[in-house]
């Protein structure tokens, strides 16, 4: 990448405000989750109430969690143990390839915010959260900690190199224990089938596609030399009405392909403009 072709938004800048907003969002989602106990997509994705076993009832516990049918059959009180209580691992796969430096607002900035919010959300639910960047950096949060360490990790990310989401998916061994996998990136370098191969029994998958406004709705730009910061490829094109219509068709086909494939695999998918705040992105994915 030459200096003349510097990326507009290669870095991440987050502070404590992100943690506060994420915690606030997690609390709202918790309340909303109770309401969707009957089973919305978000409830399925987070799976906080998913039944994994029984344990004896302890005095003072909420009677609504008592397994009444087991009490009737065995004559002893047992409560249902949910996945959250059993302890789980989340994996947030974060694309930090050079193309994530496109913006503004920068794709990597928004992706980092989403990843940070997911970490806060996971920690709040007692899950161990592993954030893996395509650049090789990794953060593993346990014991409900998601504070300064998380911020430092996110602020250290930088959009560079050509390794993207595909590389992360190929390293599935790193997060084999994860029951929740989140893909956060532009998803433009990845076919849906490659990502959805991560779905298996006992694991849910959510894919978050983030596109810069320039990629989401380019507008009539006239003559443009597009360049791919990862492969240094260039393409000169007159971005006018006809080419915009064709671009929109291609983008819709890409998004529809992801959406259909995700639906077939009971995975969540959403494609968002980076102008959307991370709360909106997560609501779209988790249904909060």
């Amino acid at each position, binding site marked *: 990448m030459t200096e003349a072709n510097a*990326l507009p938004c290669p870095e991440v800048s987050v502070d404590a405000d992100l943690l506060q907003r994420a915690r606030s969002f997690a609390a709202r989602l918790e309340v909303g989750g109770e309401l969707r106990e009957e089973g919305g997509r978000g409830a399925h994705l987070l799976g906080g109430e998913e039944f994994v076993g029984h344990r004896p009832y302890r005095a003072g516990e909420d009677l609504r969690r008592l397994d009444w049918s087991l009490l009737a059959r065995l004559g002893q009180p047992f409560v249902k143990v949910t996945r959250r209580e059993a302890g789980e691992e989340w994996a947030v796969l974060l694309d930090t390839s050079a*193309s994530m430096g496109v913006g503004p607002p920068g794709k990597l900035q928004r992706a980092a915010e989403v990843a940070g919010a997911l970490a806060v959300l996971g920690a709040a639910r007692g899950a161990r959260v592993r954030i893996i960047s395509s650049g090789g950096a990794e953060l593993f949060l346990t014991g409900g900690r998601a504070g300064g360490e998380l911020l430092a990790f996110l602020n250290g990310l930088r959009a560079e190199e050509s390794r993207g989401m595909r590389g992360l998916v190929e390293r599935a061994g790193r997060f084999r224990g994860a029951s929740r996998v989140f893909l956060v990136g532009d998803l*433009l370098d990845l076919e849906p089938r490659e990502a959805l191969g991560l779905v298996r029994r006992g694991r849910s998958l959510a894919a978050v596609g983030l596109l810069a406004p320039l990629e989401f709705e380019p507008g009539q730009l006239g003559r443009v030399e597009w*360049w791919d910061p990862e492969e240094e490829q260039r*393409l000169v094109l007159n971005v006018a009405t006809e080419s915009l219509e064709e671009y929109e068709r291609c983008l819709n086909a890409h998004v529809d392909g992801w959406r259909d494939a995700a639906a077939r695999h009971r995975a969540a998918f959403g494609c968002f403009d980076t102008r959307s705040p991370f709360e909106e992105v997560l609501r779209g994915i988790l249904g909060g």
Partner: protein
Amino acid sequence: MGFELAGLVWERPQAWWGLCLPLLVLLAAKQPLRPRQMATGALSLWKRVMESPGAGGSERPAVPWAIWLLCAGLTAAVLSMAGPRSVAPGASREWVVLVDRSPSSYLPAEDASDEDRLARGIKLLEEEWLGLLREGDRVRWFDGQAWEEGMGFPDAWRDAPRAPMLAPDWTQWDAPGCVWLCARPPAIPRAESSLCSGGGAAAPGPVAIDGEDRLDWDGAALVRVIGGAPRRTVRLDGVGGALADLVALWADERGLVLSRGAPSPEDVLVLSRAGDAGSRSEPGALSVLESEEEYGARDPAEFALLWSERLDEACLPAAGLSPVSARAPIGNAIWIQGAAPDERRDGGRPGRAWEGWLALLSCGLVAAALIGTPR
């Protein structure tokens, strides 16, 4: 000074530098067409767009037509400023040939030759100058008093005028397209006119008359010819009264003979009765009103003095007299080519001017460009 190009005469060709202006505008208009460089992660999608038919491709978009109109308008304005004028076919140049018809020009060019100095000059002029004429050139001849027009030398001027003439005022005619035709090169500086001098050897002959004698120049000195003065007559045609008496006395005093007969080559003065046109005076001839023939209530002395001055003024010298300076040898024939006539200053019919139409076209084009500029 005009400059001829593309069938037009351009009055101010330096204005062509202004053509750089529309060129600069066009270059500036092309600047924004250089593609903007933008990073994207969706290059794969744009590749598909480019491969799809009718998606615009990568061809360069044209310069807005309003810019073309503006440049055309500016070009028309610049051309208008350059002053284009069509060349009027066949009438774009005028030559003026000044002819020295003073007595010197009519003296023999060589001893015992029938050819005078002027004739030799004309011959030289035809040899050297006729080849410079273009088809359609206009030629005018001027002897200091009268104008003639035509390609050939005026035949009427081949003979010496009865009344001696002065050479033209050469200083007034030193310009492109002027030709000085003379026997002796004028003693003034010449810059742009052409010079055709016939030259000639010494021409001995009568110089003056002194009473009844004649003074001749023999090529070296003056020789008195006793009783050699030629007969000179003053002819009265219908004039009488006191004036006739006065003329008789005046003529006798100057050795002139009074005549009332038919016109003669010896006449040096003719007095005639004026008609309705009134009295008239010219070299060699006076026309007199009947009322002027008598002095009436006027002082006779004043009458005599006045008429004596008029008669002296109108009386011609004897034919064939030339001063020694005119008879002296004047060397060889000379031809010096000067500047050709200027098509814009020659007074000929000017060609059609296009400035106005071009300015109008320029205004229209610029207005159309302004209307068509996207807002």
